[in-house]
């Protein structure tokens, strides 16, 4: 039973992180129908920025919680700045191009950012400081749940609730929903569509950065390539739940997290990534619209 609970919680932790990244995918796809292939790289850059800021602060003599908060803020600012710039350079000029052009551009961006970090920093795995402190009250159940897992699950839940409020009840959230439904119509009623798209990239990137810093301090090491796998998995989660749908992304991420966790726990740990990819292929073949997505007929 303990083993089952342990797997369940580690699946939930993974799922929460995938959800944070998947939200960025699904929001961008919902608005401009683009698979933002470089989204995983934004997450990686968030983790790197956090690592660099945290190391500098450690050397300067800061301690504990203040490092976590400052590094988190820096990661969010930089990731959103990268997301914003990326949209402006690689996607905005291609708004009216054939569908494959922005996707190829996104792949190029992803390769570029990976190698930029590789060349500017290092190709080795860097140890990431454990920014999340150990809680006393979790001591008795530490074999089932670590405090990092608790923090990740709780903070992801809070972030997702905040995001839901932002999209449901604020002016900008409303504008985002309107743009997702019909860009031309949104423009007619006075919504600055370009601004809304930029904002979507900024929000998605901040979520990815938060995911990056949380998972990096849990796993304890990062390198330039972590964004690729995480990006594909988050994309799988988004597709699983129905791309474009926000609750779908969260649901898909949790299902993916549990699938991976139980499959590695009970079947074989060598094939962790194969399970995720196989799930992706199966979903796309049998239910391309995803669990919560609506399949719509194509109009001519």
């Amino acid at each position, binding site marked *: 039973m303990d083993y089952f609970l342990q797997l369940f919680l580690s699946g939930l932790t993974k799922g929460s992180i995938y959800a944070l990244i998947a939200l960025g995918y699904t929001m961008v796809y919902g608005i401009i129908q*683009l*698979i933002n292939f470089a989204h995983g790289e934004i997450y990686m*850059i968030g983790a*790197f*920025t956090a690592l*660099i*800021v945290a*190391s*500098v602060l*450690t*050397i300067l003599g800061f301690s504990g919680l203040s490092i976590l908060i400052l590094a988190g803020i820096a990661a969010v600012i*930089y990731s959103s*700045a*990268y997301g914003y*710039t990326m949209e402006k*350079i*690689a996607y905005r*000029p*291609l708004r009216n*191009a*054939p*569908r*494959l*052009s*922005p*996707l*190829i*551009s996104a*792949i*190029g*961006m*992803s*390769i*570029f*950012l*990976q*190698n930029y*970090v590789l*060349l*500017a*920093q290092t190709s080795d795995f*860097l140890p990431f400081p454990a920014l999340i402190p150990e809680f006393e009250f979790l001591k008795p159940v530490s074999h089932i749940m670590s405090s990092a897992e608790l923090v990740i699950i709780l903070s992801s839940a809070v972030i997702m609730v905040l995001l839901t409020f932002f999209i449901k009840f604020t002016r900008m959230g409303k504008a985002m929903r309107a743009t997702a439904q019909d860009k031309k119509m949104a423009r007619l009623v006075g919504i600055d569509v370009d601004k809304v798209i930029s904002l979507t990239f900024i929000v998605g990137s901040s979520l990815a950065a938060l995911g990056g810093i949380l998972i990096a301090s849990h796993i304890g090491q990062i390198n330039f390539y972590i964004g*690729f796998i995480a990006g*594909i998995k988050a*994309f*799988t989660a988004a*597709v699983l739940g129905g791309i474009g749908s926000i609750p779908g992304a969260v649901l898909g991420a949790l299902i993916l997290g549990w699938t991976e966790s139980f499959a590695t726990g009970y079947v074989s740990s*060598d*094939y962790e*990534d*194969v399970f995720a*990819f*196989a799930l*992706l*292929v199966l979903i*796309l*073949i049998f239910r*391309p619209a995803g669990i919560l997505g609506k399949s719509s007929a*194509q109009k*001519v």
Partner: protein
Amino acid sequence: MLNELKKSLITAVWFMFLTFPIMVIKVNTVYNTIVWRWHNLIYIGVGAFFGSMIWRWLHYKKTHISERNIRERLKNGLQNAIVDNKKVLYTLIAVAVAFTFAFPHMSNAYQINIMTTALMYVVLGLGLNIVVGLAGLLDLGYVAFYAVGAYSYALLNHHFGLGFWAVLPIGGALAMMFGIILGFPVLRLRGDYLAIVTLGFGEIIRLVLENWNAFSFGPSGISGIDRPSFFGLTLNLSQSMTALYYLVLGFAVITIFCVNRLQNSRIGRAWLALREDEIACQAMGIDKTKTKLTAFALGATWAGFMGVVFAAKTTFVNPASFTFLESAIILAIVVLGGMGSILGVILAALILILLPEYLRAFSELRMLIFGGSMVLMMVFRPQGLISNVRRKYLFDKMNFGGEKTNEAK
């Protein structure tokens, strides 16, 4: 003017801010020391300042070219002059052919090795060009079929001692089979989903090869694969390298011939129609599934052939040769060369593979430049280095409805 300078200045400052933590600070996490690399900040600033100017200039040029200008460039462009003028074209081809055939006799083994690799990428690029360029199906897992070919030779040679020539068709057929198996269920997906599924498939193949030790010998791979035999001759290493060079060259020539013939065939035109508009294409009575499947299977076959050649060339295969990066390089060749353009793909393959080999300083930056140029190409020149020469009629506005100026573009 002042306005332009201001814009560039703002861009420069923005990029200096953007790249600050990653470019300037380098932390040594073992000794807890920081290296500040301020000079990088200056490079970035200056680079972004001029980069943004060039960016805006290119953008201006792209949006302000009038219809007339395009037409004139079509008539007088260098590339058209070459393609239209048969004399120049044949001379160039003759020189290229003479050079490629004479190449092994005027260089050393190292050069031949590089050139063989480059020619292999030409074939791979042309194979992927069928799928991506002609049929418009973005395949991000192309390397999976390459792996199928390579492993089929490696395994059959290891277990049963089969030779290169026996496995060559088997490898191609196996890759084609994989293409059909994968293609059948996924080809009804929309373009971008298809891309991701093929990517997932490619990764699954690599991960299985890496982990299924009993079958594929895991990450350590298979070594000691036989080099191809040629008419029972006994060749030393450099002779067999030369022979392999001619073999790949022959492959390249056959591929160029096949793709060229395919392009204007019934199926080739069906691919183009499919790429341009799926619904209209179906309405014209073209079987969508069959057409897509043929493209997929044909592309995979070429990858399978090259996989066999790759295994024979390196005499060693392991899963590390078949990462997503490899797919990305082949895709970059097709995209930069110009989707659907044979000449473009050949040129792009030679440039992208040979340049990093000869400019060693540049080879570190190779993937950075690949990625960056994929973005730039899509933004400023989506048709690639050499755009696909497509037959079409140009109508003259002045006597519209009158006689047509009948010229192939």
